[in-house]
């Protein structure tokens, strides 16, 4: 028998027929279809029992309550906490994306020590014990040499137990250089201090106000406690309250307001005084408040009447005098008017004159410490630790001047002036900083004039970051001591910005720490113990959790159960008791600040001939611009007229663009006295001619591939402008030149 080609073909045919008659091909087809749904990289949600944990969000100073849904040990969804006094069930886009910060790739997973050059990104793992003893050694040496004051700390907040532990640590150690991240709250605190004699936070009873006069505050763009503001806005829509938005650009807030009044940028203070002029001259002010509870009104009245007639204000602000008069009348005649300031999200403290002028408007209509008005909210006094004993070294260190000049003769009223630090270090006029701690802030990204900040950082020999994420500052630190992420730790969250009543939120562990991180509070306590002497006496607690529990006392149990502690019975003090000034009344004239000098707008950097246009930042809820960078979910929500690929768009009026010969989508070179950047052009009718706007929150060099390298960091293009009275950063923009790229 010959086996030839035919036999072989026949064998194959038989095989094919047999295969077709067997389940093999059909089953394989089905299985491969299922296999394609089972790629190992396809995320499969865990199945199991659902549970909920009440906690607080710490991603911005808004202090929202959150309820985190968990399946087994995995957090799967963050929701707003129902019944929370701040956000009552609502949550913003950043808060919703918090899980990406917990499980995402940007976390620092273990303590790291730099091995390469700064910023090179070469690290070695180090144990917690070694990290703490290394710092203790450096700090001990400095203290021995009488240089304890050359240790500084930048903290995102000065309220709550962790910042207070830091403050206590520096005090007992002997350094006056505890520095808080600035914001509009600084200006408000100072205004309340000078006009009402109190050390307090501003509280706004938005929900009960019915005429909101906003001097550029991004009510719907993340100003104050963002979710609360959204909810208040809904209330206003229901009750028919009016919102007037005054700013040079049609922001989301302006678009949703009842009236948008574009104004020459930086002249808001003049407008406030112009409105006051109309109210005074037409006798529309609150007689009861002015006569019984205020002081210095006559001087201030003369100052306003002499200098701020609607005609002259119209020239300064570019707003028609008729509009100013109508605005003043409707503000004064409203039953519950409320004027607020702080541009955008209130990131820059701004001019003190401006804040005071706006606050004076509130006083003029008598809505200070009133339903639907503004009140001074003193921090609940729940942190009562025994007085820490200071040794001679500590006292000597504490008597040194602060590096930022806050509280000095030059700026006697200010408490912290972070914006002055880079200049103080770079000019080498005072003393150097030998060690810098950074907690709850990312100064290399958030501080203006990035180049100068970087230069100053390079001069500090030892920088320690407590960041949970590999942010810009952590990248350029010598040691990273990663904190637990907010979903892994206990921490008290003091009263959020703008709340009219004190509320203490509790951030609590939703999941176990995912990596080898430690609570910053614990690290401070360990460090103090390692330094010994009076420091270990001042930090007698076994752990941060023990400290927090002891500090909160009877509130602890309620906070664990509910997620927050509120003071339902809290009422703003009656007017008789609420002013702690020399006169015991509301002071229209701020003593020692030259407040009766005629208005001079804050001068921004750059001359008009070389830099014909003005560059201003704008804030958006879709672009986190503070210590936290946008997680991928939030990045996805950024419009392609803001960011396309890696190019950021500037907003410019078509008229101005025409004069510059620029078209939609074209590349342009933007140069300011501080820096240069390549941008794309977006024509926008909602911006005043002569102004160019750029979003904050882009241009990160750190974090993950979803955020890094996209757009421009606004802070690279602007430098700080010190307010003459407060020393706080009052820059609202910078002069700029645009050219085709």
């Amino acid at each position, binding site marked *: 028998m010959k086996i030839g080609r035919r036999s072989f073909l026949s064998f194959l045919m038989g*095989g094919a027929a047999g295969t077709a008659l067997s389940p093999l091909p059909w089953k394989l087809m089905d*299985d491969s279809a299922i296999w394609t749904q089972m790629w190992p990289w396809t995320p499969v949600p865990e199945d199991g029992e659902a549970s909920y944990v009440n906690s607080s969000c710490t991603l911005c100073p808004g202090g929202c309550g959150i309820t985190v849904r968990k399946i087994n040990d995995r957090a799967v969804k963050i929701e707003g906490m129902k019944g929370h006094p701040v956000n009552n069930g609502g949550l913003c886009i950043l808060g919703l994306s918090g899980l990406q910060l917990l499980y995402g790739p940007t976390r620092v997973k273990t303590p790291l020590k730099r091995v390469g050059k700064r910023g090179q990104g070469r690290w070695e793992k180090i144990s917690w014990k070694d990290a703490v003893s290394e710092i203790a050694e450096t700090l001990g040496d400095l203290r021995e040499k009488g240089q304890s004051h050359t240790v500084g700390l930048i903290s995102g907040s000065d309220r709550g137990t962790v910042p207070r532990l830091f403050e206590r640590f520096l005090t007992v150690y002997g350094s006056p250089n505890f520095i808080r991240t600035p914001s509009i709250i600084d200006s408000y605190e100072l205004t309340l201090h000078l006009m009402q004699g109190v050390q307090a936070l501003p509280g706004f009873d938005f929900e009960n106000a019915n005429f909101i006069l906003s001097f550029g505050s991004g009510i719907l763009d993340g100003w104050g406690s963002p979710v609360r503001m959204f909810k208040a806005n809904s209330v206003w829509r229901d009750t028919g309250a009016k919102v007037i938005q005054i700013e040079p650009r049609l922001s989301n807030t302006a678009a949703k307001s009842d009236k948008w009044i574009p104004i020459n940028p930086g002249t808001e203070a003049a407008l406030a005084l112009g409105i006051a002029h109309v109210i005074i001259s037409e006798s529309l002010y609150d007689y009861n408040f002015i006569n019984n509870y205020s002081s210095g009104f006559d001087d201030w009245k003369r100052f306003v009447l002499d200098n701020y007639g609607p005609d002259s204000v119209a020239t300064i602000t570019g707003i028609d005098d008729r509009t100013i008069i109508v605005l003043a009348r409707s503000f004064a005649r409203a039953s519950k008017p409320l004027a607020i300031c702080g541009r955008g999200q209130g990131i820059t403290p701004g001019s003190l004159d401006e804040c005071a002028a706006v606050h004076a408007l509130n006083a003029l209509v008598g809505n200070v410490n009133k339903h639907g008005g503004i009140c001074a909210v003193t921090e609940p006094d729940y942190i009562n630790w025994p007085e820490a004993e200071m040794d001679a070294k500590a006292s000597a260190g504490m008597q040194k001047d602060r590096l930022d000049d806050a509280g000095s003769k030059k700026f006697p009223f200010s408490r912290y002036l972070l914006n002055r630090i880079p200049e103080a270090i770079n000019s080498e006029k005072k003393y150097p900083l030998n060690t810098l701690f950074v907690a709850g802030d990312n100064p290399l990204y958030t501080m203006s004039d990035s180049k100068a900040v970087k230069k100053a950082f390079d001069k500090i020999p030892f920088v320690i970051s407590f960041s949970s994420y590999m942010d810009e500052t952590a990248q350029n630190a010598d040691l990273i001591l990663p904190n637990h992420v907010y979903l892994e730790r206990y921490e008290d969250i003091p009263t959020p910005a703008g709340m009219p009543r004190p509320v203490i939120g509790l951030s609590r562990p939703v999941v176990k720490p995912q990596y080898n991180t430690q609570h910053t509070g614990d690290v401070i306590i360990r460090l103090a113990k390692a330094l010994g002497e009076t420091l270990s006496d001042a930090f007698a607690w076994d752990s941060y959790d023990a400290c927090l529990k002891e500090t909160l006392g009877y509130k602890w149990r309620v906070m664990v159960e509910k997620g927050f502690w509120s003071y339902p019975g809290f009422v703003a003090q009656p007017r008789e008791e609420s002013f702690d000034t020399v006169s015991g009344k509301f002071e229209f004239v701020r003593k020692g600040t030259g407040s009766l000098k005629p208005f001079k707008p804050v001068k921004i950097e750059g001359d008009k001939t070389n830099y014909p246009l003005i560059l201003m930042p704008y804030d958006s809820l879709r672009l986190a611009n503070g210590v936290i960078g946008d997680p991928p979910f939030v990045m996805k929500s950024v419009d392609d007229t803001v960011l396309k690929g890696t190019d950021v768009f500037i907003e410019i009026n078509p008229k101005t663009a025409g004069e510059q010969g620029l078209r939609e989508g074209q590349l342009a070179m933007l140069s300011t006295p501080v820096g240069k950047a390549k941008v794309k052009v977006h024509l926008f009718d909602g911006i005043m001619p002569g102004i160019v706007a750029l979003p904050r929150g882009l241009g990160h060099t750190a974090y993950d591939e979803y955020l890094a390298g996209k757009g421009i960091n606004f802070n690279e293009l602007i430098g700080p402008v010190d307010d003459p009275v407060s020393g706080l950063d009052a820059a609202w923009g910078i002069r700029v030149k645009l050219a085709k790229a």
Partner: protein
Amino acid sequence: MSALDDNAKEIAEDTGGEGDATSSPEINTKKQDNRSAGPVILFFIIGLFASLSLGWIIFPKLLYSKKKQPIDFNHVLHMAEVEDGCESCHFFRADGTYSGVPKLDQCIECHEEILGDTPDEIKFFEEYVSKGREVPWLIYSRQPDCVFFSHAAHVKAAGMDCVTCHGHIGESESLKVYEENRITGYSRDIWGESIAGFKKNTWDRMKMDDCAECHRMTFNIEKTEVKTPTKRLIDHLIDVVSPGTSTSEKGSSVQTERDACFVCHK
């Protein structure tokens, strides 16, 4: 026609090439058939049987790997001890979700200490209870993530028995070998024991068709004729006058009363 002729010519040339001198193509074919029919058929049959045995016998053996459960669980023994039958351990949570295979915490409620002295009990206690480790049970009925299945809809709303889908597992004294599909990672029980896909009982398979079989039967919606406008109007009127009586508009899902991909597929 010309194409066919060409073909014939080609064949003729081809055969000529092999050395046969006959000029008539018909005779040529006959001769060849006679000569090679035996081996050709034989090889066809060999091929046929080889592939049939490959497909029916060897392939299933290759496709599935056999795995033993970590603990040989005895359902009969436990059923005798508990009061609520299957629901004692496989229960609905307060939020309506189904707990499925019990977690260690549940087991510990009774097995805080060693109960009895069987090797499996000792292994269970030493390996899992005392170490606090979850038992990595292999789940015969696990479905892909894209399948949305609600126990509540089937058991609570439609009143179905566990046995309908899971069979008489509750009466088993030991757990059978878990056969894992090497390609998909799922249990053999999903496709069914029979590689051909035949089944005798409702619980023999757990593929989409098996869901559909029941869904179709229950609501008798096989007749999917296009409705005339009059019929649609009458159906609509019935729905308005007495809602819920007409099944014509309803889908087979008890919960949603709809038939659509999204009822089961997320």
